[in-house]
């Protein structure tokens, strides 16, 4: 009897206790980095020239490593790009070790290996060098938007918010509503590196201000336009089996895919799934029927699905569908489904990113080589085009809130990411164990680097987050510091480079901003147009509706307010151009 009572009581306690397991473990983990660096006595302007010791040194001594890691000395880093990366270290390390609180979403993988960004080695090192103590607060993975809105609604804001563009209405709305500070004058004083770097190029200049010309966020920036990252990828074996060269025109693609089918590929082309995602801009671009909004030859905003070439495009795709050239489940397949088809023997062509496909086609178990093909064109000799363009802006804008008590410290922390030393540290991690510097003064991952020899044998796709900052409000040097691109034998970078150089990006829409009223109206009409287009196009291609129904589609789109909707985008584009 007593045992039974005890058992029930214990079970009750267990159930109540398990409910508590969900609580606790909030954002503020302990994680104190070591005390601020004591190298304040070092004269900033005159660093000892380390270039002879470090550049080209493949086996640095512990003393050399220490000199690089523990000081702001950047004499061994040379400029490789058209634009100089700034190197104003006058403010570091800051006196009185100021503290700031930064709200920054954390990558899913990173959150599985460290408790919070306070334990992230790269940021710890940066805090040592700048003398600024940072307390990172991250929302739970997957709940970033909800947590962001809750934080704003609560009215109690941290000093810095990263991904500040989550604010409803954009950064400009955050400014007018009184959440974010106007940084336009402050960055010249407290963030000279960012101020200089953003002005050094027209795209960087335009995409980092509001339409009114105000600086509200510190954006992640790139020294060059980053390569295009998606397109047609053909398995080499398919080219060998069919004996055909890489197709260029739509007709050549048709012939090629038919031959692939004869050669045994049951569903040769894996068509981008869930109609409407950007991958489908690849084939429809040949007809000018771009996926969504684009700039026509006069530089005015136009809508792809309403272009005159639409009927031809739909007829072609419907025919390909009937001939069995597309995977049958393209309307319903999700990412895992598509990858499963990619590695099967039914697929010859994927419309995806070479980095992703590298991870599936070139693993220990599979060794399928592939080539990239430019976007198809209608007439032989036409130049391939794309609506994807890189604006040298990697996003993740950081805003300083109106409740920040030490604006100087907040800006100086963000500014570090735009110095040479910050560029080196954030992109390549710590010197010695993760990267070395070549004889041209450029950092690189050496063969023995932790990046290629992770003690936990994690895949490279995860390690790009573990040892370096893959995306954040700093200078991002993707082409040289993304190990997926730089590792030996990898040619996905080459494919991306070719695509970028070969294709015409004039149809690309720049990242314009809408006012809150415009956003509301755009969302209303846009959802209707998107539903309409997805439905009609999917049904026509699948053969459930005849191509003649396209006229009905166009009529409905117009009655939904297509012209008004385009007008909204046009106004926004005009404002952008005037920046």
């Amino acid at each position, binding site marked *: 009897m007593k045992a039974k009572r005890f058992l029930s009581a214990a079970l009750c306690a267990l159930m109540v206790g398990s409910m508590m397991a969900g609580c606790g473990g909030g954002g503020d983990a302990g994680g104190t980095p070591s005390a601020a660096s004591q190298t304040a006595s070092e004269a900033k302007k005159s660093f000892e020239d380390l270039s002879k010791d470090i550049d080209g040194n493949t086996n640095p001594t512990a003393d050399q490593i220490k000199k690089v890691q523990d000081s702001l000395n950047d004499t061994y880093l040379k400029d490789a790009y058209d634009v100089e990366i700034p190197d104003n270290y006058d403010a570091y390390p800051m006196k009185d070790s100021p503290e700031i609180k930064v709200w920054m979403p954390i990558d899913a993988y990173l959150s599985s290996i460290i408790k919070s960004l306070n334990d992230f080695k790269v940021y710890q090192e940066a805090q040592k060098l700048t003398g600024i103590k940072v307390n990172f607060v991250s929302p739970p993975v997957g709940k970033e938007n909800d947590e962001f*809105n809750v934080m704003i609604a609560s009215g109690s804001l941290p000093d810095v918010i990263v991904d500040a563009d989550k604010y409803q209405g954009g950064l400009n709305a955050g400014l007018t509503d009184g959440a974010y500070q106007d940084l336009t004058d402050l960055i010249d004083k407290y963030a000279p590196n960012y101020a200089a770097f953003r002005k050094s190029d027209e795209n960087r200049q335009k995409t980092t201000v509001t339409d009114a010309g105000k600086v509200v966020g510190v954006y992640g920036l790139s020294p060059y336009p980053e390569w295009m990252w998606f397109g047609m990828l053909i398995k080499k074996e398919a080219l060998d089996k069919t004996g055909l060269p890489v197709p260029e025109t739509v007709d050549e693609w048709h012939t090629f895919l038919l031959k692939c089918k004869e050669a045994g590929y049951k569903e040769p082309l894996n068509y981008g799934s869930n109609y409407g995602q950007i991958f489908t801009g690849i084939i429809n671009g040949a007809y000018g029927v771009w996926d969504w909004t684009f700039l026509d030859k006069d530089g005015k905003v136009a809508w792809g699905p309403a272009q005159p070439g639409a009927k031809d495009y739909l007829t072609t795709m419907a025919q390909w569908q009937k001939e069995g050239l597309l995977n049958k489940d393209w309307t319903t397949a999700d990412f895992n489904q598509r990858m499963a088809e990619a590695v099967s023997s039914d697929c010859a062509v994927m419309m995806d990113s070479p980095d992703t496909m590298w991870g599936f086609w070139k693993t220990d178990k599979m060794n399928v080589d592939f080539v990239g093909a430019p976007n198809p064109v209608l007439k032989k000799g036409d130049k391939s085009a794309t609506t994807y363009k890189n604006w040298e802006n990697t996003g993740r804008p950081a805003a300083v809130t109106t409740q920040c008590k030490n604006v100087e410290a907040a800006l100086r922390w963000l500014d570090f990411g735009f110095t040479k030393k910050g560029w080196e540290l954030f992109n390549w991690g710590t010197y010695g164990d993760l990267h070395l510097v070549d004889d041209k003064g450029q950092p690189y991952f050496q063969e023995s680097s932790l990046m290629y020899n992770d003690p936990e044998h994690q895949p490279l796709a995860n390690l790009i987050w573990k040892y370096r900052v893959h995306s954040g409000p700093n200078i991002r040097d993707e082409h040289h510091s993304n190990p997926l691109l730089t590792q030996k034998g990898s040619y996905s970078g080459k494919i991306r480079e070719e695509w970028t150089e070969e294709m015409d990006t004039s149809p690309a829409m720049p990242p314009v901003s809408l006012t809150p009223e415009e*956003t509301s109206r755009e969302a209303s009409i846009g959802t209707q147009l998107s539903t309409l287009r997805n439905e009609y196009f999917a049904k026509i291609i699948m053969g459930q509706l005849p191509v003649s129904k396209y006229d009905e589609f166009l009529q409905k789109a117009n009655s939904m307010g297509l012209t008004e909707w385009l007008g909204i985008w046009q106004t926004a584009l005009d404002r952008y151009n005037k920046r």
Partner: protein
Amino acid sequence: MEAEYTLRRTKSAKKELIRKDFHAHWFAYLLILPVLAWYLVFCYAPMWGVMISFQDFKPLLGFFRSPWVGWKHFSEFITGPYFWRLIKNTLLLNIWGLVFGFPAPIILAVVLNEIRHKWLKRSLQTITYMPHFISLVVLCGMIYIFTQPNGVLTQMVGFFTGHTDQSLLGVSSYFRPIYTFSGVWQNIGWDSIIYLAAIGNIDSELYESASLDGANKLQSIWHVTLPGMLPTIIILLIFAMGGLLNSSFEKIILLYNPLTYDRADVIASYVYRRGIREGSYSFSTAVGLLSSVVNFGFLWATNVFARKYSEISLW
């Protein structure tokens, strides 16, 4: 008993009665206190928040500083080109659920009740309510695999239609059956539990007297079991009617695609897609408010019917 009836006639007597009840059953009241508090704090108190459907709500400005826009969001929703389709799809999906999903657990409960073999009865019960515990995402994953080109279900359907190489989820006329019957399969066992409990409450003397009067199995079910379950059935039916304009959007989102929008796109999934473009709290609140008001109308109407044609009703 008689004395109590006369007591009820006077107001102060009523008070006296309440005090007595409280005194005798204070523990029961204490137990229900947290439940009442939960309803007050989480269900009733936040209700005034629906006022954001009349504003252009912005989290930083809060409830009192966000601009007022009157009926803007309601009219945007109602005058949209897809409004009637969304209403029709939502209603039809729920009506299908009602027509097929409401009687099914009742029938199962009645059948289970007739099984005499204890072990068989128990194991059948357990097997039928296990699917309830499968998460929705897993269920939809299963449906996806079965309805793939050359999947199990596809082949079965292909037997009749001749096509086996299309995904069943790509045919909009199949959407309602797939959605409804997978739901029935998943919930039939769990929902039958409450009916089994109701059946258990039926006095066994009634069965004896029925068999004495010469009733066979079917007749005793019709005249004893079902009437005994009637109060439970009616109450649950009223609840179900109050959910006609709801949509469990997770299942819809997991199963639909552009090919089936014309049958599968419901109010909640449309608002979800709208919300991705503009995290509009106000718009979705307005739509939710509209649905709730209409739902309440259905609930009220059903309750009136129930009160008129039977003695059982919610109020």
